[in-house]
């Protein structure tokens, strides 16, 4: 348990992806079965433990300490799980106390009935030290919140076994905690686990961005063009009565989209884009947002924002694997297949006819629907390959939007950037003439060169007006301020931000040392984009 607790403590404070991978891989290498497998299940959200409500934690701690002292403590720390883990009175520090194992903790929690659950939890907390108590409380209250996605955990497993992460994604849904067979294979002690389960995920094929000069080398006749829809890439698989809707990283998202999942009355595997609305009236990205990141969906949500799938590709029909066929054959099969599906939930992603690259460029710049973010190019003869092979598929995105904003706050980075102010909050002007105010519209921490970073860092240090921990407030008014040209992919309405807008993928595209702060853009410019 202590090693798992230590892992959580380090992961939550480690900002870099590589750092997290090292910590995870080292943990999986050092810890034995079944503890490491249970840790993997906890991190990927596959550990089944009856939840304990925060109120129960408060009750348990109230039985053990003065409520006034607990109140002072909770006020100071601000997080219930952390406060309880810290103030929990250790019964008596016995020297022979053996710290519980993760497997032991999980076994006891899973075996506990509803009525003796609190008692079991209290006993476990008695046996654990501070870090382990925190980890136990996190396990029972649900949600570790350590900034590690299931995808990252799978990448760590791939690093451990020196295999491609696609292999693990493909197997994943056929495996169950504590994954002893998976670890045995990764450590070379056993064969690869059989793909025994039904409706497994097939690693998706991804495209490369069109780079400078790429198109000149390509013959337009070799490629099909298709709209690039800005929804969620999904894979709908149904085999032997089992159906699953996967995200592009192999996470099962059926639970969040029961309306679409229930309409899957075929036998096969389809690659496509999940969108909101209906095939005849495709919704906007704001509509789609209503359905994102939800564990449960209300009937109203299902009625107002129905999900459907725009189909790109067909990977399997019945027992026939189509992935080795060329795209034009798969496309023909797909066109026939989609006709057999529920037309309110499935439609075909149309191809875009074009004569040459200049013609396609014109079409790309003015797509027929706001949720289109560019075009896809697919070689007619390309098989369906896992990963991002160079050549067969390209994505050619619409040019980003840009806005001139003023730097308002800068925050220190991490790791290599820990002595640099590298995360920038910027704002645009709002309010009546003569009483303009900057209102923050976004935050960006990439897009600039190392040299530019040094320049901005110096500017921040020379123009600081206030400090809050790692954040500096930078002088920014009508006469002073650094103007940043910010590129972004789109704009969403936001009730969380004062400005009412939230940018998608903002990055710094240019430093406008030449531009006076007063000439930066106004919020109205951004709001106008919301309505397109």
């Amino acid at each position, binding site marked *: 348990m202590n090693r798992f607790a230590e892992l959580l403590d380090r992961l*939550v404070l480690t900002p870099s992806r590589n750092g997290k991978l090292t910590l995870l891989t080292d943990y999986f290498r050092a810890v034995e079965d079944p503890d490491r497998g249970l840790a993997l299940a906890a991190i990927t959200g596959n550990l089944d433990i009856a939840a304990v409500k925060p109120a129960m934690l408060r009750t348990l701690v109230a039985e053990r300490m003065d409520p006034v002292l607990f109140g002072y*403590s909770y006020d*100071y720390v601000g997080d219930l799980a952390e406060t309880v883990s810290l*103030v929990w009175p250790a019964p008596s520090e016995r020297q022979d106390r053996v710290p519980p194992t993760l497997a032991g903790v999980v076994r006891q929690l899973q075996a506990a009935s509803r009525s003796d659950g609190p008692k079991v939890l209290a006993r476990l907390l008695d046996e654990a030290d501070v870090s382990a108590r925190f980890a136990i409380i996190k396990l029972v209250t649900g949600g570790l919140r350590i900034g590690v996605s299931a995808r990252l955990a799978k990448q760590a497993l791939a690093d451990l076994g020196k295999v491609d992460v696609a292999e693990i994604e493909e197997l994943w849904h056929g495996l169950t905690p504590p994954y002893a067979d998976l670890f045995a294979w990764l450590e070379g002690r056993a064969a690869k686990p059989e793909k025994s389960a039904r409706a497994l995920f097939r690693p998706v094929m991804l495209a490369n961005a069109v780079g400078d000069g790429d198109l000149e080398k390509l013959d337009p006749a070799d490629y099909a063009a298709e709209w690039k829809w800005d929804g969620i890439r999904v894979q709908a698989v149904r085999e032997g009565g089992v159906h699953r809707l996967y995200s592009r990283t192999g996470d099962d998202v059926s639970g969040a989209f029961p309306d679409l999942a229930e309409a899957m009355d075929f036998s096969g595997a389809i690659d496509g884009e999940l969108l909101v609305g209906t095939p005849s009236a495709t919704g906007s990205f704001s509509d789609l947002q209503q359905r994102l990141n939800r564990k449960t969906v209300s009937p109203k949500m299902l009625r107002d924002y129905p999900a459907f799938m725009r189909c790109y590709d067909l990977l399997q029909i019945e027992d026939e694997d189509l992935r080795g066929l060329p795209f034009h054959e798969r496309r023909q099969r797909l066109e026939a297949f989609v006709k057999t599906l529920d037309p309110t939930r499935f439609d075909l992603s149309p191809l875009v006819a074009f004569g040459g690259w200049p013609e396609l460029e014109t079409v790309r710049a003015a797509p027929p629907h706001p949720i289109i973010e560019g075009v896809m190019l697919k070689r007619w003869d390309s098989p369906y390959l896992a990963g991002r092979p160079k050549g067969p598929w390209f994505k050619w995105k619409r040019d980003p939007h840009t806005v001139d904003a003023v730097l308002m706050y800068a925050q220190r980075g991490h790791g290599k950037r820990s*002595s640099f102010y590298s995360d920038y909050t910027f704002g645009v002007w709002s309010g009546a003439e003569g009483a303009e105010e900057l209102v923050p519209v976004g935050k960006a921490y990439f897009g600039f060169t190392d040299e530019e970073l040094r320049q901005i860092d110096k500017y921040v240090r020379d123009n600081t007006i206030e400090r809050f921990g790692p954040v500096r407030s930078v002088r920014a008014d009508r006469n002073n301020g650094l103007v940043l040209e910010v590129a972004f992919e789109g704009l969403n309405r936001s009730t969380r931000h004062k400005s009412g807008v939230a940018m998608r993928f903002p990055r710094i595209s240019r430093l406008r040392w030449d531009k006076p702060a007063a000439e930066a853009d106004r919020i109205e410019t951004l709001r106008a984009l919301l309505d397109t």
Partner: protein
Amino acid sequence: MRASDLLHPRPEGLYCPPGDFFIDPVRPVERALITHGHSDHARAGHRSVLATRETLAIMALRYGEGFAETTQAAKPGERVRLNGVEVSFHPAGHVLGSAQIRVEHQATRIVASGDYKRQPDATCAPFEVVPCDVFITEATFGLPVFRHPPDHHEIGLLLKSVAQFPERSHLVGAYALGKAQRVMSLLRQAGYDKPIHIHGALAKISEYYQATGIDLGELLPATVEGGGKADFAGAVVIGPPAAFSDRWARRFPDPVSCFASGWMRIRQRAKQRGVELPLIISDHSDWDELTATIRDTGASEVWVTHGREEALVRWCELEGIAARPLHLVGYEDEGD
């Protein structure tokens, strides 16, 4: 005599009217008794200073030899009479030279603890329990949430991380007096025998520690000489916490920022400071040490100063011990 007539707060600091002296005054006074060398307790400009030999030496290092007109070294446990008031200095276990000050007059005995801890520390003499009527305790970590783990456990985390990330350097933020040398000493005790790189602000004090016979091993200045960033791959670098957000830190390759402090017990504190590896190593008592020490002194009354007074006062009330906050001005309750 009433305890509050023997010692009470004045704007300059804690004052003893019959003895006519101050303990750890924050403004220049005629006669000052100093518990330890941290700058908020030990200031320059008093006429005469009574403190341990080590504290006097540390003050001279920080402020120059003329930091006071006259100085007198207090030997541990030795009784000194000041205008009829008896005082003595006893180890507080906080940093090298740190002492509690016993003040006794007409059968009333008060012990002013200064800052103290009970965890063993190879770089200073251990805390000595001095029974008293009134115990003046610090309360930097005076909340039940502060429970410091054993320091060797935290150093173990640091060394593990050094092994896990050999291409990065580990920057350990630690206060220049006491904490930095304790971290060095702990690294040596854990068998780490490579040179430790230090920020210039640590050099003089660390040298003094070593001159008193405390083994800190080989210390090298953390400067780039001819080489480059790669020189610091795998290195442990110790410096004052503020230095790591400074441009000074750019000479290190992809640093792991560590901070050795009792505050690191609270995750949000570590997050806010951008600390990647918190090391819960404190030179102040945690909650359990504070409450155990109050019991150990047998004091019937406790005055609580700098820190979170209210929780410790509440605990004393629950234990049936008279307690009140003692409002002293000018001390950093964020030290450590």
